[in-house]
């Protein structure tokens, strides 16, 4: 059988591997139980549960999709459909620092592409790619709602506003 493109939903590494099965550690499990109390249906808890899973494991693996689908009595296909619809759920592992550069119009006018292209070149990664040491992932993202302090780079959860190529260069060595 011909090899499938890794983005193909039927590619091998998109199927859950039983030997890699996951389970929430007790603290996360407690938070999951709390989430359930805040919604009128189990299904409605899907987005916050996926956020919790990503916080726990860094990305949403096929095994996580299966685990979450069992927790919430949903089909894995349903869960995967939601994971792939929303931008913030990482379908592949990302670096320790996820550098998300907004390049929408207001940031673009304030030279966001220089930052973004500079990062890709300096770190020798393709757009969306991760450095081999697993430290950085560089992603171009849509408007982050910080246009008054453009350009903005979101690093993991934190906004870095009024950025420039120079400031990015100065910041990068501190992210270890």
């Amino acid at each position, binding site marked *: 059988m011909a090899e499938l493109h890794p983005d193909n939903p039927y590619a091998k590494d998109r199927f859950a591997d039983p030997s890699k099965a996951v389970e929430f550690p007790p603290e996360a499990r407690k938070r999951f139980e709390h989430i359930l109390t805040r919604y009128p249906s189990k*299904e409605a808890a899907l987005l916050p549960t996926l956020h919790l899973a990503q916080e726990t494991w860094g990305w949403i693996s096929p095994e996580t999709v299966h685990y979450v689908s069992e927790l919430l009595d949903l089909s894995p296909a349903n869960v995967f459909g939601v994971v792939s619809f929303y931008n913030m759920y990482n379908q592949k592992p990302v670096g320790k620092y996820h550098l998300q550069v907004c390049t929408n119009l207001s940031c673009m006018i304030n030279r966001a592409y220089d930052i973004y292209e500079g990062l890709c070149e300096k770190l020798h990664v393709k757009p969306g790619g991760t450095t081999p040491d697993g430290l950085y992932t560089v992603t171009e993202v849509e*408007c982050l709602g910080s246009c*008054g302090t453009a350009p903005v780079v979101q690093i993991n959860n934190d906004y870095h506003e009024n950025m420039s190529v120079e400031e990015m260069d100065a910041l990068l060595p501190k992210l270890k």
Partner: protein
Amino acid sequence: MEPIKVLTANIDKPNSTAIDTYLQSGGYERARKALTTMTPDAIIQLVKDSELRGRGGAGFPTGSKWGFVPKNAPRPTYLLCNADESEPGTFKDRVIIEKDPHLLIESMIITGFAIGSNPMSYIYIRGEFHYGATVLEKALAEARAKGFLGKGVFGTSFDFDITVARGAGAYICGEETGLIESIEGHRGQPRVKPPFPAIIGAFGGPTVVQNVETLACVPLIVENGAEWFKSFGSPKNTGPKLYCISGAINKPGVYEFPLGVNLKELIYEHCGGIPGGRKLKAVIPGGASAPMLLPHEIDLPLNFDAVMKAGSMLGSAAIIVIDDSMCIVDAVWRLAKFFAHESCGQCTPCREGTNWIETVLDRIERGGGVPEDIPLLMDMPENITGRSLCALGDAACGPVLSSIHKFTDEFRYHIEHKSCLPETKRYRRLDFASGH
């Protein structure tokens, strides 16, 4: 017109997010007044009288929206706060969320009471606003500790609480039915209307979805009355308003004015004009979805009706300023790329159309355009507008159509000379593949 401090009255105070700071300025007294001395119908009538219109983009009369909610629906009524601020150029709700979260909570208590909400309501905040979600969680815990949320609010029989629901990076979830789908745990694909959310919305119950800034007006109306609210702005365009200004501008940021500040005055007098001695090329007055205005068109009051009369829309009052050094084809391409990326994929005209618009604009930018591309781009919106369930398809056409009509010569030059107009440039490198 001078800037005002009404919605933003608290944001500069030290420790503005703490409940004690908020209580010192009469915080939660408006909610107490509404719940203990007013009936839900009286609150709805008051908001109708104030002529408050939604600040999220559509400008729909808020009181009327609440009035549509049926009294004895078979399923519980929901109040959802739309804090999914993702329209490019918009960053006003974030100010309220991050600097004055209790104003939002108080407004939801009043609104929830007015529409007969069930004991659980939600603030749907975009996933990227991690800090904002933390601020809200902390404020909610403070409000619960004081008994402002929970069972029997202010000694009445009204039970009410709020949950922060985080989005996960999808512009379409700012559309009200997309937001409802997302709250229910689905992909954020908008629904067919009717039934409108006020009749059947979240979990099958009547639902009111309201923008952060709209809600923030409610406690002020309860405190000061409808006439006071109408003293800002002009008839049918009333109240204080937050304007977001960004792009090629000396002093970007959020400015508060009575609804209807003059756009030219805002750019040149309050925001310091265009940096680097460059000239104004175009202004987007209401977020990425709004058609562009040319420099000679900007002497107009920024209210719902005047901007619509000028052929654009106030939208979320997100003003993006474009200067004369920017290639207009590239600017429009960036907006088109946004809509192509954010189309939910449900309706064919939008899913395919937004991608084609992006492809054709990119082709022109790269020097591969042909003269037929101009009529092609003009023709495409006709096959998208009004042919999809929600307004995203229409929105995608706004900047494209307006720019082609207003900058036809620049588009032609680009196609003929396979390069940008002299003295304009693109702000990206063409050898870079798109990261999406």
